[in-house]
């Protein structure tokens, strides 16, 4: 038997009974969503709740400094900056030992820029010659605006997807897709909370991308589902769903794999500033694949769907267990 190309070796048609596991999956998903919500909202500390808030959203300054080829004396730097009376200053190693990341807030009523220059002077005084590789400073006013527009963006994207699916399919499909979307977004927030990935504009961009890909996956499954609904008018809803998912399974796996491979490359080689972004998207791709099978389709099963010649067919035990 020839093992290449692999597509010939893969099973031609799988017959997994996805729907049968839908209840179990639903319980797990609901628990995971609740857990994620708790993790990302609690302790309820504005603006980001339980998430590691980036300066994009809470204001303040981040500096990347380098004393190459000398290593940064983190302890000495921390001690020196703590005496400045500008509140909590975080000093972290960042990549190479000769690099460090310094974060601090702008005390109320002081000038953003003056504060930055004061800290830079102090760092130079403490460590000797320092290169300030990158500095970002954001005022409270702007960070509040960025936070609001970030949330509006997320909300807007979800709304737009609902409208698109509704317009392109029908309302039940839209609800299923949006349920899957919320599931993905909430779980991603949970991941961001657990891994302490910084929640900033880049994280929002990553989540928006996930929304796009999650929908993409859902749409592909729905497309086949709609087609099969027309083709097999008498087949119980649960079976049509199973059949559609099985038919698309090869494609789903191949596409997810290419995305996963590329994202792993990004996470490994993309450097520290792309790491968070790639991890979020990696998780999103996997969870998006899961949710289009186990969230989007079963929601339709639950709500029923209007088939061509008959009334909407709500969930009946017969449809689930067969």
């Amino acid at each position, binding site marked *: 038997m020839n093992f290449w190309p692999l597509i010939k070796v893969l099973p031609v048609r799988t017959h997994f009974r996805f729907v049968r596991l839908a209840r179990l999956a639903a319980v797990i998903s609901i628990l995971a969503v609740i857990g994620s919500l708790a993790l990302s909202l609690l302790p309820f500390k504005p603006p980001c709740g339980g998430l590691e808030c980036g300066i994009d959203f809470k204001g303040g300054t981040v500096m990347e400094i380098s004393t190459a080829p000398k290593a940064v004396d983190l302890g000495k730097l921390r001690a020196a900056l703590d005496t400045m009376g500008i509140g909590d200053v975080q000093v972290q190693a960042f990549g190479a030992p000769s690099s460090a990341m310094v974060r601090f807030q702008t005390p109320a009523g002081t000038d953003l820029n003056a504060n930055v220059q004061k800290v830079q002077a102090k760092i130079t005084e403490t460590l000797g010659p320092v290169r300030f590789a990158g500095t970002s400073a954001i005022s409270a006013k702007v960070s509040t605006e960025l936070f609001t527009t970030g949330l509006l963006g997320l909300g807007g994207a979800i709304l737009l997807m609902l409208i*698109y699916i509704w317009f392109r399919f029908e309302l039940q499909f839209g609800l299923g897709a949006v349920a899957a979307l919320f599931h993905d977004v909430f779980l991603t927030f949970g991941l961001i909370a657990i891994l302490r990935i910084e929640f900033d504009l880049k994280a929002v961009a990553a989540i928006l*991308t996930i*929304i796009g890909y999650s929908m*993409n996956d859902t749409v*592909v499954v729905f*497309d086949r589902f709609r087609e099969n609904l027309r083709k097999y008018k008498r087949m119980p809803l649960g079976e049509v769903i199973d059949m559609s998912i099985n038919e698309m399974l090869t494609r789903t796996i191949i596409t997810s*794999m290419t995305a996963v491979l*590329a994202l792993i490359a990004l996470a490994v080689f993309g450097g520290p500033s*792309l790491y968070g972004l790639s991890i979020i998207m990696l998780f999103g791709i996997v969870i998006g694949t899961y949710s289009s099978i186990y969230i989007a389709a079963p929601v339709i099963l639950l709500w029923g769907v209007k088939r061509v010649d008959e009334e909407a067919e709500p969930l009946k035990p017969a449809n689930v267990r067969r």
Partner: protein
Amino acid sequence: MMTLSRWKVILVTLAALLGVLFSLPNMLPSNVRDQLPAFMPKKTLNLGLDLQGGSYLLYSVNTEALRTERLTNLVEDVRSTLRENEIAFTDLAVVGDAISVRITDPGQVSDAANFLRRTVGAPLAGAAGGRDVAVSTGADQRLRVAFVPAAFEAETARAVEQSIEIIRRRIDQMGTKEPDIARQGKDRIVIQAAGESDPDRLKNVIGQTAKLTFQMVDDTTTPEDIQAGRVPPGSEILQSTDGFAPSYIVKKRSVVTGEMLTNAQPGFDQQTGHAIVQFRFNGVGARRFGDVTRQNIGKRFAIILDKKIISAPVIQSAISGGSGQITGNFTEQSANDLAVLLRAGALPAPLKVEEQRTVGAELGADAVKAGAVSAIVGLGLTVVFMLAIYGFLFGGISLIALAVNAVMIVGLMSLTQATLTLPGIAGLILTLAVAVDANVLIYERMRDELRSGRSLIASMDSGFSRAMGTIMDANMTHILSAAIMFQFGSGPVRGFAWTLFIGVLTTVFSAVLVTQVLLAWWFRTARPKTLPIA
């Protein structure tokens, strides 16, 4: 679908060639690029500040200061108007957003209101006409003088425009690479300077109001008065950077101001060799400066920039020529920068930094390197994976489509000069990796059709056309999320969105048309009996 129509072949070939043509400048070293004939495109990818290094500065115009200043001036206007018309008054003060004054003689209240209405404030621009202040009478012989709401709005808009103009003049004279200065929202200014080596100097030149005044040092006071904080009325203590004393007490009234300067140049003191700034007054300034120096020989005056004394020399002789020099505590560069500030004029209101992002060129280069490595590895993995799954023929076809896609994206990004940011590179890699999805959809559909018993040609045909609908639907979702990101995002996120958007367009084009042409061509030349992937 499997017929090879001529226009499709032409379209695909043309798109691929144009893609190569427009992405070519990115592959060439700059000296080769400069020698290209004129008809060849020369634009390379427009790298964002996070990739090439640079500064992004967001300032807001301090409208509160503007308002306070205008109200203070208005108080003086009211005072002089009432005095000129010999109307006695008390309690002249700023109260909230307005000015309140009590007219002593009840009979003069309406006269006073009329005088004020005629002379105070300035005519409003626009068709409505009228003046920008409103005068109303209140209880207890009081008058209330306030700016109409439109006045402050117009003032803010004017201040922002003026600030942009002045900042542009200042930066132009610094001789750095052309920065991008734009207004954002109602009262904000964004400045983006690529490759600026010294962001602090840039901030310094932009952030200073540069309000220059010449004020007399109050010689009735002693250094002990400064320490005790005893300040005579009409004087104030100001910090000094002249290197001689930490602060001086100066008279509040300014003798001459920066608006009366016509020129300022950096130079060197011929005796000491120190860096200095030479300046020249206009007619009014020269006359006033001459008078004051003549009357105050042997006394000190202070040259004050933004409430900080930069020099406090003793007047040796009357200076009547209208020119002079500031011998402050300067370096060559700071003298040059001060001259730039004085020539460009003072900002109408102080600017406040709201956001600043600076990236060193080295950090940017690291980011480019990391992006390139992950692109090579990520796409390499995709190539290996697709060949392993679909074999050289069908896998190869999808990879040719991918290559066309890649050059089209790079070409389009170079052509439109869309900003490529670091997250944008991530978006690009992901877009390309997932672009093969369209091929996968087409191939899987073909296999399905074949399995349901159709002939090879029929299943290729209908596999193709049926996959189309799905591809369109699926890619629409990316367009929507990219549009949202573009709408709500800023800076790097917008770059990411734009990259995604261009990527979706080229993906649909290349995966659909390129794949179709290649498959049709294979079908015609090889006359296959079976599908190699079924």
